């Protein structure tokens, strides 16, 4: 922060600042919500594995809980990262005009990812997957690509949104 910061921030409210790009700046133009979907499904699977764990051997169970939790944690974080790339690198103001609740959807999905880190809650994991799927539907719609919902065809079950073309 700087002495001029309040004045410059006030100016920003009157006329927004220009955008300066600092992302993979070719730009490569390659974005896909599938990575976030897989991460969300992994979080769901870890919840299922924790729930189904055989606890007859306490040491083994403790080790498995640690492994499942670590994976749940890292994939919830990965899900947030993948969502954020879509959020601030792919989506543009014109998308927001068409989908005014876009920011809210990303915000809530990120919060759900955090909740999944904090808890063992299969419902929260399903909610995260659904939130990511809704973002995937919007993502493909902005590219005029029709989508369908179908089974993930993974052990975890659950649905993915797929491009239907």
């Amino acid at each position, binding site marked *: 922060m700087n002495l001029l910061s309040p004045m410059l921030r006030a*100016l920003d409210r009157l006329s927004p600042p220009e955008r300066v790009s600092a992302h993979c700046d070719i730009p490569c133009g390659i974005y896909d919500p599938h990575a976030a979907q897989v991460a969300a499904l992994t979080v769901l699977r870890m919840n299922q594995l924790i729930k189904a764990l055989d606890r007859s051997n306490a040491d083994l169970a403790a080790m498995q809980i640690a492994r499942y939790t670590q994976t749940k944690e890292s994939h919830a974080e990965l899900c947030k990262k993948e969502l954020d790339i879509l959020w*601030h690198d792919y989506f543009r103001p014109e998308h927001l005009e068409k989908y005014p609740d876009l920011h809210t959807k990303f915000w809530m999905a990120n919060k759900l990812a955090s909740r999944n880190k904090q808890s063992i809650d299969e419902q929260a994991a399903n909610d995260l997957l659904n939130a990511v799927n809704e973002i995937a539907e919007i993502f493909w719609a902005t590219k005029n690509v029709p989508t369908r919902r179908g089974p993930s065809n993974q052990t975890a079950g659950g649905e993915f949104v797929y491009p239907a073309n």
Partner: protein
Amino acid sequence: MKRLVPALAALLGLGAIGAIALLLSTRRMVVEGRSMEPEFQPGDRVLVNKLAYLRSAPARGDVVVVQRAGDASPHLKRIAFVPGDEVEAGSGRRRLGPGEYWLLGDNPAESTDSRQLGPARREEIAGKVLFKY
């Protein structure tokens, strides 16, 4: 009191001139993307001096806005090498010629820069970042 009024008026006038000069010589910009992490995060706002290189040459370490020919959007990068420096380009080692600057992102894993695009020309460097606000 009589002397205070003109002094205050002069001070206000100087302030106004200063503010106008600042507005005309700078650009307010908001950062998108991660190629300049950790120092510059997405959403950070920066004040860019458009006139920084009128009298002095861009220097190693400067964070600059570059507007490459044929690319509509400005990019934020750091000057890694300046004219006369040797760089490791895709085709082997080479020395930067006059007016050539090697720009890199601080976060190389998520940056496209001189490693892929080659050096930027001095006239493509549109300003120097002064500070975040």
